[in-house]
């Protein structure tokens, strides 16, 4: 086992100066025997990071799993309830609604961002100066804090006729729409806001993707007399497919933990119509004081997220070979 680990490490990095100069070779060509302090060396460099991860990531994760089996009562002591939190979790209609909202939100917002981001990239690709400036400007929504974006959008989508978007709609004889304040449109408004915030991010990825498409294929299109739509459909889109899949899958997995966007813009309402899993979890903790139940929801979401990520990594590894 040791030798195998050593060899795989060697295969990845060429022999370091460390190994060449200071390692005494054992007879038989095994790994060089290092003095104790030399073997300790790397761990000293890793120690601070491992300490931070251990205390603030691993410990809370384990503590969360532990709490999920308890009815948490401040000052009275926690009461062991076995799997009660989990059986509640699987029969909780509100949570089921929240799961549905979260899935709708993740899939729609991510695919919407990819769609808009792709067309932005098609429009704004290229090294020309005015395009570069416009690209920089369009990217700004992604670097402002989510809280700022959500506050801005609650004003943009203000439900009265004075709201900015409603004023525009009024000019073409529509609206006023209620947006965030109606159960029918709250989630859709959140998705709209997320697309606005995330599409420019995808744009930058696609601009790079477009630049890496094989130029000869475009020339071949030109010779074959393909129009721009055919070129897009049969050359550009297939070359962008691998990136698009990664962005989509990663985005959806990330989207499962949406919190700030919804908490600030709609607070999950009206009437729970835009509640996501994490806003529901937080509400169980902060409003219902049911920390054990919140921990159980968190544990399941954690398992699902990590499971999906592992699946994606496996699937990508298979795709690579």
């Amino acid at each position, binding site marked *: 086992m040791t030798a195998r680990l050593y060899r*795989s*490490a060697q295969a990845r990095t*060429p022999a*370091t100066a*460390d190994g060449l*100069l200071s390692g005494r070779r054992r007879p038989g060509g095994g790994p060089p025997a290092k003095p104790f302090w030399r073997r300790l*060396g*790397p761990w000293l*460099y*890793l120690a*601070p*990071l*491992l300490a*931070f991860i251990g*205390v*603030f990531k*691993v410990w*809370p*994760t384990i*503590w*969360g799993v532990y*709490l999920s089996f308890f009815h948490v009562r401040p000052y009275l002591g926690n009461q062991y309830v076995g799997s009660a939190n989990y059986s509640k979790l699987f029969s909780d209609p509100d949570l089921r609604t929240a799961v549905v909202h979260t899935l709708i939100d993740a899939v729609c917002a991510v695919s919407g961002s990819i769609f808009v981001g792709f067309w*932005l990239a098609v*429009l704004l690709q290229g090294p020309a100066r005015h395009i570069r400036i*416009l690209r920089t*400007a369009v990217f*700004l*929504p992604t*670097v*402002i*804090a*989510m*809280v*700022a974006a959500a*506050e*801005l959008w609650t*004003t943009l989508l*203000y*439900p009265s006729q*004075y*709201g900015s978007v409603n004023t525009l709609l009024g000019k073409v004889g529509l609206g006023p729409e209620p947006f965030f304040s109606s159960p029918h449109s709250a989630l859709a408004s959140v998705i709209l806001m997320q697309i606005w915030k995330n599409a420019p991010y995808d744009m*930058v*990825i696609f601009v790079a993707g477009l630049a890496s498409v094989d130029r000869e294929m475009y020339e071949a299109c030109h010779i074959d007399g393909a129009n721009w739509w055919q070129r897009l459909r049969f050359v550009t889109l297939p070359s962008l497919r691998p990136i698009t899949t990664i*962005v989509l899958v*990663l985005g959806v*997995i*990330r989207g499962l933990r949406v*919190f700030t966007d919804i*908490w*600030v813009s709609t607070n999950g309402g009206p009437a729970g119509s835009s509640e996501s899993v*994490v806003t529901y979890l*937080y509400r169980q903790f902060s409003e219902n004081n049911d*920390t054990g139940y919140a921990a159980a929801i*968190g544990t399941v*979401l*954690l398992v699902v*997220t*990590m499971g999906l*990520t592992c699946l994606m990594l496996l699937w*990508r590894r298979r795709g690579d070979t």
Partner: protein
Amino acid sequence: MRIRTRAGVWLLYALVAFVFVYPLWTVVATAFSKQQAKLGALMNVPHGITGANVSQAWHLGVARGLLNSLIVVAVGLTLQLTVSSLAAYALARKRFKGAGLVMLAILATMMMPEEVIAVPLFQVLGKIHQPFTGGTLVNSYGGLILPLVGWALPVYVLTGFMKRVPLELEEAARIDGAGDFRIFWRIVLPVCRPALGTCAVFGFLMIWDQYLLPLLVSQSPKMDTLTVVVTSLQASQEQGEGVRLAAVLILAVPGVLVYLALQRLFERGLLSGSLKG
């Protein structure tokens, strides 16, 4: 035909700018407008210029929030970069038993969504006592900062970068008698400046964006970070939207400045992160 296409393209440019940039401008216009906009309305141009909204927001907690956010981001980012570059040095430059396992563990924490472990994290913070004051990490700068330090992204970026630094540099220094830490500090780290810049931009935006953690950790207005302050400000009939949007503006500006200053590093990092997965 050609002229018509050109005009069409410029029309699209204008549309794109209107959708993605114009809303940001209306925040600026409304925040600095002397005449108040109606509730929910945004202004295209400020009607008379005043700093009254900004100063009123400033006194409603934005000053304290900004100070806290700046402290958190300054200390947090310094710690994050220090801890990550030390770890990356070991992972990229040393061969030792368990290196692969450590890298895997670090990447696993990358998938661990912070929002999901926030509630148990809050309880854990309540168990950790500070050395001098004796209080727990809840409602303290430690609680706002320390959970953000161990982040997989900079470790990943810096390890990748350090692996590509030529070994000759290090060997020459070692022959001259430089110790391990000296090599790290004087040779490897300065070469990694571009990667450190990339990590700094991402780290800044990640820390500045924090909302759920300060929402849990801060128990008094004194410890609120800017994101929490901004969400607690309500627009009112007499003030209109001006004061609230002034606060939103103050929250938005640092991210924009950091991005504009380090744009090239940022885009490079974004692409290496997403294309390689």
